[in-house]
């Protein structure tokens, strides 16, 4: 048995090397190459698992411009003062066996299977994974563009924006107004804007108790709404007002120079304005021609493979997959399914049936944590929710404290799972 396999192995290798492997680099090295664009929750997990579990049989290249990832997840917790901002940073040194290309991917030639790099070079692939997160839809909030992000921060894409926002809250005049413009669906982290409002209220209750928070929301309703509204009533009575589309919140305009909002023709002066615009897949997905008219990249629910190109997988926030929310948990869960599928395809074997999972924890006030989550599987051509759970209004303080502690344990565990244990 062994002999006959090693014999056919030589034959098959000769055959595949000559006829089947497209890129010269790959032929020379005799192993398939997977290029991953984006070293965030989804991309770093795929890269790490592929390198770790393929025993060197797959060459894994990660293209990511930053040398450090500042997570959005838990950035609201740091904004609220419960964590240091520095605790959100993770390096890439824990990704053993992954070749890191510190650069932007600036284009994808899908016919030649080649990724162009900002620095001028390019890297070829046998399989490409695109996990670039989100970009904002231009003109989504009239008057706002990325050039206004110092005056009116979004703090929704990692980096230093969250610190800018915190400094503005601390500098707010007594009794001033903090405005938050929430995005329309779909967007990353459905409870994120409301956890944000909660953490701002927590800060203001201590430092500026007569200040007000105004949420301008284009949506009729939002994630964990009953839980947030109950919590705001209990912890921050009278501080938070939310207006919906009935009051013109879906057509709000901003004036960053004068710190004004225009809602239904009425001009409102505010002191801090957190603009979270409508979102779409990270630009590189559109540049690669893998997005549809919605701005997101349609994928198959079995393995997150693009519906437009068999050789490309899109995962995390950028993908239109069905019922999973756009979260770090979801991106990490999808990444494991993708790693199984790519290993099975490239190195043989059968991938296990995909099982997806998500949980989103949110903090409403000190020790008042809530959670929502579900299991998912492919069905009806999309990722479909199976069983779900959610925190209940009126839960005991002890249950809520436990839920908050869970979220802290989750942050540590998932960070190690994404970046490897030497992440710092």
């Amino acid at each position, binding site marked *: 048995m062994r002999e006959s396999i*090693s014999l*056919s192995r030589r034959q098959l290798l000769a055959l595949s090397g000559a006829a089947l492997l497209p890129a010269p680099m790959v032929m020379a090295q005799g192993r398939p190459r997977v290029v991953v664009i984006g070293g965030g929750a989804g991309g770093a997990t795929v890269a790490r698992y592929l390198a770790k579990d393929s025993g060197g*049989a797959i060459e894994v290249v990660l293209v990511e411009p930053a040398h450090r990832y500042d997570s959005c997840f838990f950035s609201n917790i740091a904004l609220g003062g419960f964590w240091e901002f520095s605790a959100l940073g993770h390096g890439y040194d824990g990704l053993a066996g992954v070749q890191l290309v510190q650069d932007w991917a600036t284009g994808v030639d899908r016919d030649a299977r080649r990724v162009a790099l900002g620095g001028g070079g390019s890297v070829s692939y046998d399989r490409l994974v695109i996990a670039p997160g989100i970009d904002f839809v231009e003109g989504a909030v009239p008057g706002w563009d990325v050039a206004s992000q110092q005056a009116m921060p979004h703090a929704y894409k990692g980096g230093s924006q969250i610190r800018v926002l915190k400094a503005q809250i601390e500098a707010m005049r007594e009794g001033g107004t903090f405005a938050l413009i929430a995005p329309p669906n779909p967007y990353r982290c459905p409870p994120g804007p409301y956890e944000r409002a909660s953490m701002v209220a927590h800060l203001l209750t201590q430092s500026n108790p007569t200040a007000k928070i105004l949420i301008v929301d284009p949506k009729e309703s939002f994630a964990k709404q009953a839980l947030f509204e109950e919590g705001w009533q209990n912890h921050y009575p009278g501080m938070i007002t939310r207006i919906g589309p009935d009051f013109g919140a879906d057509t709000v305009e901003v004036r960053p120079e004068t710190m004004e909002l225009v809602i239904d023709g009425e001009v409102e002066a505010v002191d801090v304005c957190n603009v979270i615009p409508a979102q779409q897949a990270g630009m590189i997905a559109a540049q690669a021609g893998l997005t549809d008219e919605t701005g997101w990249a349609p994928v198959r629910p079995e393995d997150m493979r693009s519906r437009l190109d068999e050789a490309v997988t899109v995962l995390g926030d950028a993908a239109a997959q069905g019922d999973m929310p756009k979260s770090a948990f979801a991106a990490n869960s999808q990444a494991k399914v993708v790693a*199984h599928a790519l290993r099975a395809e490239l190195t*043989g*074997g059968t991938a296990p049936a995909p099982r997806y999972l998500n949980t989103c924890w949110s903090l409403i006030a000190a020790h008042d944590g809530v959670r929502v989550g579900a*299991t998912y599987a492919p069905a009806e051509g999309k990722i479909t929710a199976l069983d779900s759970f959610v925190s209940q209004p009126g839960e005991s303080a002890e249950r809520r404290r436990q839920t908050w502690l869970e979220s802290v*344990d989750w942050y540590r565990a998932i960070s190690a799972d994404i970046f490897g244990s030497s992440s710092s």
Partner: protein
Amino acid sequence: MRRGIWGVAVCLLIPAGMGLADDAATLAQQCVTCHGAEGEAIPPLAGLPEADVTAALLAYRAGERPDALMQVVAKRLSDDEIAALAAYFEGLGP
């Protein structure tokens, strides 16, 4: 199909045991998103006695041990998978 031939070719270069199966290590990848090396509210699983993990997962799955989260996680595990996971995590212990 191209995929088939290529898959077989490269697969044979890999040492035995590296092949993909729906094995305990693969199943456990779902767990480590929450269960890390330390944790107060989400206990580490590495080194827990096999019988305890089995009992806990069976109880969550049956709805006899409360925790809505672990109940949905356990609900999609078969008896065999629970046994494999329990043995796997005990084996990771010191």
